[in-house]
């Protein structure tokens, strides 16, 4: 493989969602990390270098998606951040864009292809 394996972190409080996301990228040469909370997500980011892309839920117990991505932006500003949420009111989108500096807001239920294409485009950017 000519270039480094892409590392993606998925954060969602619902493990089934995480497993589904992992399956979507089965055919891709990505290394997928998963976390069930923002706190766990930050730990993983600390432990593993060079995670390039983060897909996070918005509504989670404890730290919510925006707070998590805001922290990620402060510490790892070069990461690409995507919000994947079923709760898509205007206020949450505005928050995510302004505080988390996100690349994309994708609403649940997502379309697998769309998600794949978005991730692919983001990485190649």
């Amino acid at each position, binding site marked *: 493989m000519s270039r480094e394996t892409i590392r993606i972190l998925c954060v969602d409080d*619902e493990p*089934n*969602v995480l*497993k*589904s*996301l992992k*399956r*979507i990228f*089965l*055919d891709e040469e990505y290394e997928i990390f998963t976390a069930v909370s923002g706190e766990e997500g930050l730990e993983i980011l600390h432990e593993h270098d060079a995670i390039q892309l983060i897909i996070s839920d918005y*509504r989670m117990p404890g730290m919510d998606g925006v707070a998590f991505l805001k922290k990620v932006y402060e510490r790892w500003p070069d990461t690409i951040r995507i919000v994947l*949420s*079923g*709760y898509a*009111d*205007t*206020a949450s989108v505005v928050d995510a864009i302004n505080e988390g500096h996100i690349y994309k807001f994708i*609403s*649940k*239920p*997502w379309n*697998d292809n769309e998600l794949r294409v978005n991730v692919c485009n983001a990485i190649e950017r």
Partner: protein
Amino acid sequence: MNSSKIKRDKAMQNLVADDHDSAVGENTIDQLLSQKDDLLKELEKKTAEIRQSEQIILGLLDIPHESAMLVNTKGRILAINTAGAQMLGRGRDVLFQQNLFDFLPEAISDRSREKFSEVVSTRKDVSFMEDQNGSSLVHHVYPVKDDAGIVTQIALYTRDVTERKKAEERLRETQKKLETMNMELITAYSELKSTQSKMLQSEKMASIGQLAAGVAHEINNPVGFVTSNLGTLRKYIDKIMEYHSFVTGSLSEFGATGVLEKIEAERKRYKIDYIMEDMGELIEESLEGTARVKKIVRDLKSFSRVDEDEYKAADINECVESTLNIVWNELKYKVEVHKELGDIPLIRCYPQQLNQVFMNLLVNAGQAIENHGEITIRTWCDDTSVKIRIADTGCGISKDKISRIFEPFFTTKEVGKGTGLGLSIVYDIIKKHQGDIDVQSQEGKGTTFEVSIPAVQEIDE
């Protein structure tokens, strides 16, 4: 003639006789003198008695505020008290033996005359009232009969009731005021009650909205991963099928005869061919199911999202469509819905609220249809407004009820089915948009509601 006069005449006769016959002498003169003294004493006594009884009668008569008089049938005054004299504006002495009618204004004297002759002929008392120069007088007329029962005199009592009438008037006014206030309170109370229930209802709708938004999120998670997993499963199956055909192909090429037959038997036993064929359909059907759930959740969200209840330009046809999606479950088994959505401009409105209008009208239409019927939704516009007509072929509304259907709490539905608020909310929302709602119904034939919303409104926000 009274007895004292007879005595006196007798004494005079005696006196004259004595002049002719002086022989009767001094004895008789002494007798006469003493008789005269007796008579004078008696006279004095009687006069005192009369004066006393007169005083008693006057005392009885001279009550303030009530005039009393005795007149003969022609109106000549035989007795009158002070209040009576004051009423007639003369002294008592002047009035005595005068005709009462001479002192009364013409109209009143005519009326009194009438009443007097009535009393004389019927021999029964009468009362009448009379307003004069701002004062109110009540007259009681009593017949005074002689031994034969003929009315010879008339007693007239008059009382000034002006103050009493004024007091009564004031009392009536106060009562009227109280009644008005009471009515106002009743109205205010019922308004309060209806406002409260509307508030409860809108609060309920708001919390249903919040709930829906929250539930939508919760549903979107499982729908998300189920959909995604089904997609992945389809890919897995493709891979397995490819692998399977490779294996079967290799086996038929290189496999031992016994093994191949055994594999074939197992293949039949597990109905592998059928399963292979059906798997694809199974996944397609499941994906279609999740797509439907997705759509329902999206409609639910767009219908109930509270923060979107703002005044903005909206397409009424879209409102109708999205509302129809929501109530579709209640309608689909018995109702055929015809849509004739015309080319209408966007109008500024509260789309959520209009959604509620359409929902209430559509649910009602559905409930009016018992077994099977049709609902026709038509939209069009004229120069000034956008119109929406929702017509059903249901049971209709009777004439006596149609005027009341927009009243809060009025319901024809069975207990528990209707709150009686649906149409009153509809009415309020339409009025808020400065629109109109019109209803036409024929019992047994169906009901048509026509909503008209002005394209340009001035809303107090």
